[in-house]
């Protein structure tokens, strides 16, 4: 039975802030940057109004924001931050520290393109740049997903089999600044759901203890780890990512019971008999869905696969979803300059490579620097896929849609 819920008008940033207020972590350390600013402002307002009791630290840079979360999380606190673009770039050094030390920090990324040239609008260059840093990444299509993920993320990150930090990604402006209807749970239901942070037990220099800084049973976080054990510790992180593929659906299923909203790692839509399909992340998938419905009305066998969890990469679900589709278009909203293709494209190719029979796969780079991706553009992608399907071959797999030639 799902709980009674309240419909609220909120944009994506407010959805992050409201969910985080309900979770009421222990420490929030953040630095303002467009288009994430609303989150930090809301979170400081809640403190001022006495609605929460987390410690809010108005740090002097993002490097300090994440460092602060690392310290707090190591001390056993629930720590939250949020950033975008250059802010995430400045955090880069610490993103690896947070995951390597297995600190379950939650961070909202309000996706914005990385300069240069300077641009404040949406694409995925920021979070894609951090894709190898050992963080789980959840990409949201709308503010409802943002709200829900900002609650469930804590349980996923803190699960004893996982212990990895999480980025909840939402598209700048498209989601962050656009008002939507969001169903919200009562405070008590949220706080019961997230419960208290769990700790695993480790062997410290003074015996068994919980994995957190505790002066009574001291531990050292972040000591040197050379040729002797570094490699094995990386294998632990690989294993944690694998575990996350099991834990995320479990947490989602439990959340579905209280919210009535269920989520998947990967969300296929009208894929049963699809001949052409588009795979992508984030808010664009709303536009793709709209276009798929139109094309279906016109008799075109079109479908889509929305990837909600990009890290860990849901390989086996992706194989199941795409293996029988003749032509697949992968939407990438970022570049990997000098690489064979965009990041989602490359990983999809690598995942499907071993199949005896595989789809023809083309890459459609779109929306860089906030360039609008409307239904017409998506229709163009499907038209190009239909052509590929009919011809049975792809020339150059790289397409830059919506850009001047």
């Amino acid at each position: 039975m799902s709980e009674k819920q309240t419909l609220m008008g909120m944009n994506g940033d407010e959805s992050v802030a409201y969910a985080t207020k309900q979770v009421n972590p222990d420490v929030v350390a953040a630095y303002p940057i467009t288009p994430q600013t609303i989150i930090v402002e809301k979170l400081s307002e809640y403190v001022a109004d006495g609605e929460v009791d987390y410690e809010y630290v108005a740090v002097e840079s993002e490097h300090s924001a994440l460092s602060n979360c690392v310290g707090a999380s190591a001390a056993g606190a629930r720590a939250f931050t949020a950033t975008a673009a250059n802010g995430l770039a400045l955090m880069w050094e610490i993103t690896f520290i947070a995951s390597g030390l297995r600190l379950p920090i939650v961070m909202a990324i309000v996706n914005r393109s990385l300069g240069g040239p300077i641009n404040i609008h949406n694409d995925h260059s920021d979070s894609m740049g951090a894709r190898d840093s050992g963080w789980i990444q959840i990409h949201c299509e709308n503010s409802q997903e943002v709200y829900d993920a900002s609650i469930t993320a804590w349980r996923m990150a803190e699960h004893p089999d996982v212990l990895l930090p999480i980025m909840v990604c939402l598209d700048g402006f498209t989601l962050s600044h656009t008002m939507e209807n969001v169903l919200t749970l009562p405070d008590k239901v949220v706080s019961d759901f997230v419960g208290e942070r769990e700790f695993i037990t480790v062997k410290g220099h003074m015996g068994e203890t919980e994995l957190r800084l505790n002066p009574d049973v001291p531990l050292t976080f972040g000591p040197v780890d050379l040729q002797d054990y570094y490699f094995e510790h990386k294998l632990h992180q690989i294993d944690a990512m694998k575990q996350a593929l099991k834990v995320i659906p479990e947490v989602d299923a439990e959340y579905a019971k209280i919210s009535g909203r269920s989520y998947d790692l990967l969300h296929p839509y009208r894929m049963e008999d699809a001949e052409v399909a588009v795979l992508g992340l984030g808010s664009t998938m709303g536009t793709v869905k709209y276009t798929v419905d139109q094309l279906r009305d016109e008799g075109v066998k079109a479908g889509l696969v929305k990837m909600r969890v990009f890290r860990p990469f849901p390989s086996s679900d992706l194989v199941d979803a795409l293996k029988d589709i003749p032509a697949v278009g992968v939407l990438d909203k970022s570049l990997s300059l000098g690489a064979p293709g965009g990041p989602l494209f490359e990983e999809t190719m690598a995942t499907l490579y071993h199949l005896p029979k595989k789809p023809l796969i083309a890459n459609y780079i779109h929306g860089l620097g906030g360039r609008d991706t409307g239904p017409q553009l998506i229709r163009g992608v499907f038209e190009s896929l239909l052509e590929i399907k009919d011809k049975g071959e792809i020339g150059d797999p790289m397409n830059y849609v919506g850009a001047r030639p």
Partner: protein
Amino acid sequence: MASIRELGTDQKNYWCPGCGNFGLLNGVKRAIVRLGLRRDQVTAVTGIGCHGKTTNYLAVNGFHVIHGRVLPVATAIKLANKEQTVIGFAGDGDAFGIGMGHFPHAARRNPNITLVVHNNLIYGLTTGQTSPTTKLGHVTKTSPRGAFEEAINPISTALASNAGFVARGYVGEMDHLVDLMEEALRFRGFALVDILQPCVAWNRINTYDFYNKRVYKLGESGHDPTDLTAAYERAEEWSERIPIGVFYKVERPTYGDNFPVLAGEPMVRKKLDSGKVAKLISEFA
């Protein structure tokens, strides 16, 4: 020699009407004109913030860098071409938040550049959050209960970092500001000009009225700008009386004076001697 007109651009101006940045930009232009510089002899480096637009509105060589990194880029430009008059423009957030790591080092390193701080005691562009120079108790969007962290004092920080030229201007005292900018640009070494610049949109405390009632000129008060102790004492004044003018001015060797390779022609015009390079490479072959 550029004129005020030539120093302007045809870019649409996005600053709020009444913003202190207008006066600041005008003051800088007037100083450039007074110094008789051509547009191509000046390089402006701006950070990210409302102040960053200065490179859109000032028709000299311009480099709009990322948030907080004005000083390393400006320093390097000066090293590459010492004939350029290099002016860095940074907000108080840009200079003393993310950019703070660079500030004391630029001051002690002493490159021959000028740093202009658009000090509005608030984050302007991101719409009104607390900045490192926001005063205690000031209510902002990220300090709704009032700022409770002590503000950074740009003047005493510069003094403690061994900056050779430390000054404060105010956009409500234009002629004084132009004199100050001219003196800073003539100074050989690192010059800080911290400029009080009301942000009419987000800072309702440090307004024109606030400053008009308080500012006084150091030059008219018997202050000796070679006296470091006196400079520190003046730097502490803020509540009833706020000093503007030159707090401290002492020349010392600049970064570069001790590098033989930087003597003579500017680096950009030095030719690489391919013969020498080939010889060097062959040593490792």
